[in-house]
């Protein structure tokens, strides 16, 4: 299976403070990889570096076989790399419909952008009912659905998701995870998921990437991390 994302010896940080050190892993096409680890392990920094918001200080990021160095952030979505940032992905001053329109503005294929929008409304009927509401009038779950739905309008190959379960009811989280699984299995989407909620993440993921203090301490099939007591105790603390 070809890897959509390959990370080698990646270093990154904020100013003089290094956060990521020598990070390496790869994510095969059509799979879900979950990045796990405690607060401050560097999970969000990793996603921000992958989508170009943060410049790496060393190492390589290969996406679909291409080196991403020097590619501008605003061009990544055109290549099929979508990033839903933590907590504040929705532009709260815009309506639901405007947020979704924004997600497809760069697309040349206007008809398909509209079709993708209708699919999002079908996927999340709650959004269709509230399309003229402003972002800040939505509940946490609706915002998360909107942020994910808006990313899907790009018809991405790789979806970077930061803490999609944050502040959501378990039922909504389960719904979103099931959706991700389905998109991977049916449409070949590849997902890199950052999660605090380890059980939820391992239930949906194919691969678990455990980080601690800016390093990858282990990358293993999710089933092994789930079932091997020794690994689970050592790296995930339960």
């Amino acid at each position, binding site marked *: 299976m070809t890897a959509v994302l390959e990370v080698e010896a990646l270093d990154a940080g904020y100013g003089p403070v290094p956060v990521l050190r020598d990070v390496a892993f790869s994510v095969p096409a059509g799979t879900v990889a979950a990045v796990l680890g405690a607060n401050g392990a560097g999970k969000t920094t990793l996603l921000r570096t992958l989508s170009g918001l943060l410049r790496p200080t060393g190492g390589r990021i290969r996406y679909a076989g291409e080196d991403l160095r020097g590619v501008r952030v605003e061009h990544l979505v055109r290549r099929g790399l979508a990033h839903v*940032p933590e907590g504040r992905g929705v*532009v709260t*001053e*815009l309506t639901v419909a405007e947020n979704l329109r924004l997600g497809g503005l760069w697309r040349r294929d206007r008809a398909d952008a509209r079709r993708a929008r209708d699919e999002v409304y079908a996927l999340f009927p709650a959004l269709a009912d509230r399309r003229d509401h402003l972002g800040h009038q939505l509940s946490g779950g609706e915002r998360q659905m909107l942020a994910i739905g808006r990313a899907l309008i790009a018809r991405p190959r790789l979806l970077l998701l930061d803490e999609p379960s944050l502040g959501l009811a378990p039922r909504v989280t389960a719904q979103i995870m099931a959706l991700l699984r389905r998109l991977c299995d049916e449409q070949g989407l590849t997902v890199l998921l950052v999660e605090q909620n380890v059980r939820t993440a391992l239930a949906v993921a194919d691969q678990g990437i455990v980080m601690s203090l800016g390093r990858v301490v282990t990358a293993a099939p999710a089933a092994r991390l789930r079932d091997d007591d020794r690994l689970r105790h050592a790296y995930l603390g339960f």
Partner: protein
Amino acid sequence: MERFWFLTFDGLAAGAVYAAFALALVLIWRAARVVNFAQGAMAVATAYVGYAVAGATGSYWLGLAAAVLSGLALGALVERVLMRFVGTAGPLNQVIVALGLVLLIQAVLGMVFGNGYRPAATPFDTDALTVGGVAALSPYDLWVLGAALAVVVLLALLFTRTPVGLRMRAAAFAPEVSRLLGVSVGRMLTLGWALAAGVGALAGMLVVPTGLGLHPHAMDLVFVVAFTAAVVGGLDSPVGAVVGGLLVGLILSYVTGYLGPDTTPLAVLVLLLAVLLVRPGGLFSAARARHV
């Protein structure tokens, strides 16, 4: 009563220009979180260009087009070569640079065109028409009112009905998310400055003939009034800028008419102070606190 109506019409015509100028301030505030203190000076510079072209070609309309075009270019230039490289670490940095730009523009205009007042031609008659025995608006006032309202409507359409308007709003509210969605935020910022300066140039062309004429400092008081109007409306709100502009125009017209023109500058500052004391967020401020 006749005088009251006259002052009301006069105030609305002046207020329409303040509204357009305040709108230009709001445009930049929303895009870059900066009050562009150089906007008055930039508008004067473009008005000089406009009237120079009008004088050379004999056509007011060509002059107006030249002023607006040079405004668009000047706004883009100021953002691209100046503001972009000023650190945004402190809100004062860009304000200081803008004030420096005021001094620079006014000095250069004085050197090139001289510091005297130059007459500015108007395309329409400035004598008030009398309607039913009441002196109301002059044809020029009607043109000013119409042009200012047209700008307001066009900007509203641009922002709410077009893809580029949606991009500009998104880039202003959430720059990082917008970049992830493929919006070139830097380009939107340049466009915001260009649009604002273009609107400012139009407002300058409209307002200069109503004063003493063209002069490097011709827009100084207009800027203060428009800034007050923008603050009255809440710096974040385009609707607020328009309502604030008309309101301030009316108030100043009554003050000038009933108390005398000497009190006008004082009245502006009193109004600004009152708004900042009573409702610092402006009349149209959202419920949430503004964090600068």
